[in-house]
């Protein structure tokens, strides 16, 4: 899941090649915004974080890092990590943690994903997509971010590890638990709908 093109892009930014930074912004902005927004659950804060992240990335690529370091840089996880740090800093700053669900992290036994809730066929429906969206929003930020990185960004565990800073086997467990939480939230929703 490497993206050699964006790696060269970082080097181009380092050398201040014409239009390189714009290309970097165009390529990553929507995805970084999505990530920040899923962590912060606030579009304006997310916007600010992404903007700040690009300024920092630009400064690092053009001033702080030497060419060799830029060349060795895994750009995608690096950018996501900058956004992640800024986003979680911002969360910490805004004391209201009310958006965090009370049943934060179920570290108990991992059971199989029961196929009882019918994500299978029904998810093509717009309604079902909304249900998934809704379920995702009830998850703790630590799970939401993993779902985004793994399933929306389709990043490898190695890259997620670079972004989040945990080792791969720990991440595998967390990703699975996050999926389980998502499934629980989804089936809970369905029950409420039925009643």
């Amino acid at each position, binding site marked *: 899941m490497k993206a050699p093109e964006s790696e060269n892009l970082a080097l181009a930014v380092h050398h*201040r090649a*014409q*239009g390189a*930074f*714009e290309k970097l*912004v*165009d390529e990553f*902005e*929507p*995805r970084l*915004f*999505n990530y920040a*927004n899923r962590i912060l659950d606030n*579009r*304006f804060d*997310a*916007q600010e974080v*992404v*903007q700040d992240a*690009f*300024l920092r990335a*630009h*400064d690092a690529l*053009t*001033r702080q890092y030497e060419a060799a370091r830029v060349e060795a840089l895994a750009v995608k996880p690096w950018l996501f990590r900058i956004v992640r740090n800024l986003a979680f800093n911002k969360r910490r700053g805004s004391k209201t943690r009310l958006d965090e669900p009370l049943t934060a992290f179920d570290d108990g*036994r*991992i059971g*199989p*994903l*029961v*196929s009882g809730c019918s*994500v*299978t066929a029904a*998810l093509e429906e717009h309604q*079902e*997509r909304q249900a*998934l*969206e809704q379920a*995702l929003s009830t998850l703790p930020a630590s799970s939401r971010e993993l*779902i985004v990185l*793994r*399933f*929306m960004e*389709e990043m*490898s*565990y*190695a890259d997620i590890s670079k972004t989040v800073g945990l080792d*791969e*086997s720990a991440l*595998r*467990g967390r*990703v*699975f638990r996050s*999926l389980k939480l*998502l*499934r629980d939230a989804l089936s809970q929703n369905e029950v409420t709908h039925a009643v």
Partner: protein
Amino acid sequence: MQCRSVLTRIDALRTGELERGDSVEVESHLHTCGSCHDSLTDVENFATAVRSLAAPRRPGQESLVSTLCDSFDSIDVDGTRVWIAYSSNGVRAVDMRASTADEFRKSYGVRCRRELRQQPVPERYRKAVAAALRGELSSAPDVDLTGRTDFEQTVLRIIAEIPRGEVRTYEWVAREAGRPKAVRAVGNIMASNPVPLVLPCHRVVPTSGGIGNYGYGPAMKRKLLAAEGTPVEELETLAREGVRYVGSRTTKIFCFPTCRDARRIRDANKVGFHDLGETRELGYRPCKRCTPAVAA
């Protein structure tokens, strides 16, 4: 392998990220355990479903590029090529040195730590810069000094107020900026003025007299000042005589030589001073318009 270990590995198996030994074990478990096999299908379904979620729209229509990057282009003023960088808040940089767009873009990147996109310069900035180069600019357009220190910004705002056709000393600027000893610092700020011509650093001269140096050479400074109606030759003559202030015998007020009030004094009533001590001895007070000294 137990179900628990298998379940945390099925997602990595899905994308072929497991080490070989691991994946053989997990696969053989999946053949025998129906429940774990179902979980693999579920993970696959979830992966597809989550991927289909639309990315949320960020607020605002404008691309982030336009807030992260500034714009630039060159204009031609009577055969001189002038590079102008600007943001949505005002002029960011003016330069007559760079010979190519790339050279200007890169030097701007180093100085201002921002990227530039080539885009036509708005009419009002083009007109202002052209007028400034011809010595005809009466009021400066908006400038964007983001990234400069407070003191730099203060100093640059002060020199913007020096009237066309007049000059002030570095000492005067430092005093006006509230740091009378920072004469050297003012000199450095003039030397690194990001928007020469528009913010008239050429109207700042040495306290010892004369017109002093300029980023584009003293000849350019002389030409600009002359075009603005500054009596350059008179300034140089006074400098040779060591005269730094002129006063009026009738009003007992003294000024900088280029102050428009000083230029109204009749030759018969005009008196030159070499330093502030002389003015005090003779009981002259500083002009309130050009403030050559703090009023006693």
